[in-house]
């Protein structure tokens, strides 16, 4: 058996959001911290207080390069944090922002990132309430890394809980997949392609509020960032013990993203998204949720993509365009390093 250095040290793929990340968390990180707030490992933690349920989340952004078609690390940081709160059924109240700036970063670059953060925060209607700024020596020329935290207040009656999902419930997504990951890839130096694709980074708290306002029974939400839709579908199967059956032809994807993914040899289901939410909804409420999404800026292409069944063994299964079937699994982890 060969020496495996992944047992001894971190490799890039540990941050990919796939299986390797999963394992790192389960074996080395979570066990040391284990507590009831952390254990569910949801997008945010819920703190129960007399008279309020507070939602708390944290994120780190190391995307490379820091500027890419349609956005930048600043917009990502705000939207990602806001969305982690929103998918829990919380109203985001405030964000914190820790900037780690690399020696040599042009001031004009910092200015653009800050403008972006301000614009995204304004769009989401969530203030940056506190922050910190540090500098580090010149390294890879990344320029900026960002760590955030977010606080939200759980909506009355919101109960996002995968254990509530039953056979017959459906899976929805608010729009086209794979744009973000592919847009970032196009900005990487040694991959020479240009694209019309733009990151889909967007704050979804507005859309999610409108959906929840309909009174529909939304049982679970998650944003398919690193690991893509495939990651979330796998999460759902594991969390529910049910099979998720997804119709490939129903998954919204732009023709450009489809062709570009094929060109790069990537499965669109594994590509990161930053303006998407996957929802598990009671079947009766699907139409209502779709209508609510489609009336919103970030939900125009919303669609039902699949459903839960009790077919054993529980798997995430794709009904392909050709009419066949295949399993969906969480990607390994390094397909697109440093994508968010």
């Amino acid at each position: 058996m060969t020496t495996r250095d992944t047992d001894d040290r971190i490799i890039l793929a540990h941050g990919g959001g796939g299986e390797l990340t999963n394992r790192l968390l389960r074996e080395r990180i979570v066990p040391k911290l284990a507590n009831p707030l952390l254990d569910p490992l949801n997008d945010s933690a819920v703190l129960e207080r007399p008279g309020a349920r507070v939602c708390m989340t944290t994120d780190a952004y190391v995307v490379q390069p820091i500027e890419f078609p349609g956005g930048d690390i600043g917009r990502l940081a705000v939207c990602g944090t806001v969305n982690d709160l929103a998918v829990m059924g919380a109203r985001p109240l405030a964000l914190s922002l820790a900037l780690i700036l690399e020696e040599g970063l042009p001031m004009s670059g910092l200015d653009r990132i800050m403008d972006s953060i301000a614009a995204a925060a304004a769009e989401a209607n969530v203030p940056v309430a506190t922050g910190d700024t540090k500098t580090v020596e010149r390294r890879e020329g990344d320029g900026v890394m960002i760590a955030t935290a977010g606080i939200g207040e759980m909506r009355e009656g919101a109960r996002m809980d995968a254990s509530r999902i039953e056979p017959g419930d459906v899976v929805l997504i608010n729009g086209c997949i794979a744009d973000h990951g592919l847009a970032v890839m196009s900005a990487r130096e040694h991959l020479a392609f240009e694209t019309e694709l733009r990151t889909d980074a967007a704050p979804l708290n507005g859309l999610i509020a409108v959906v929840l306002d309909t009174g529909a029974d939304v049982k679970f939400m998650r944003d398919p960032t690193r690991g893509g839709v495939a990651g979330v579908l796998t999460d759902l199967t594991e969390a529910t013990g049910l099979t998720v059956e997804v119709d490939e032809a129903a998954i919204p994807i732009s023709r450009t993203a489809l062709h570009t993914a094929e060109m790069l040899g990537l499965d669109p289901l594994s590509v990161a998204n930053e303006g998407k939410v996957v929802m598990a909804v009671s079947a009766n409420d699907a139409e209502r949720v779709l209508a609510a999404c489609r009336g919103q800026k970030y939900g125009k292409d919303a669609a039902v993509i699949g459903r839960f069944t009790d077919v054993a063994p529980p798997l995430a299964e794709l009904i392909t365009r050709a009419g066949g079937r295949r399993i969906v699994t969480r990607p390994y982890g390094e397909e697109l390093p440093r994508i968010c």
Partner: protein
Amino acid sequence: MCLAVPGKIVKVTGSGDDPLNGRVATVDMQGSRVEASLAMTPDADVGDWVLVHAGFALTVVDEAEAKETWEALQIALGDDDGSVEFSGSD
């Protein structure tokens, strides 16, 4: 490894005898563009469809046949059987 995708040449630059960069095409892949050397397809020109692999055009393909063969092109052009829920937006 055997990944090759069809696209339409929208621009050709260069000339001359450099086997790698002699003539280089910008190939449109339904909204993404990639550069491909025409070293193996010297007669290809703007408007032609080519099959691109690893930064090179391997061969010229007939546009109509390409649309018949590649599912992604069928979907893009809406020739699908209607069960696709996709966004035509770019």
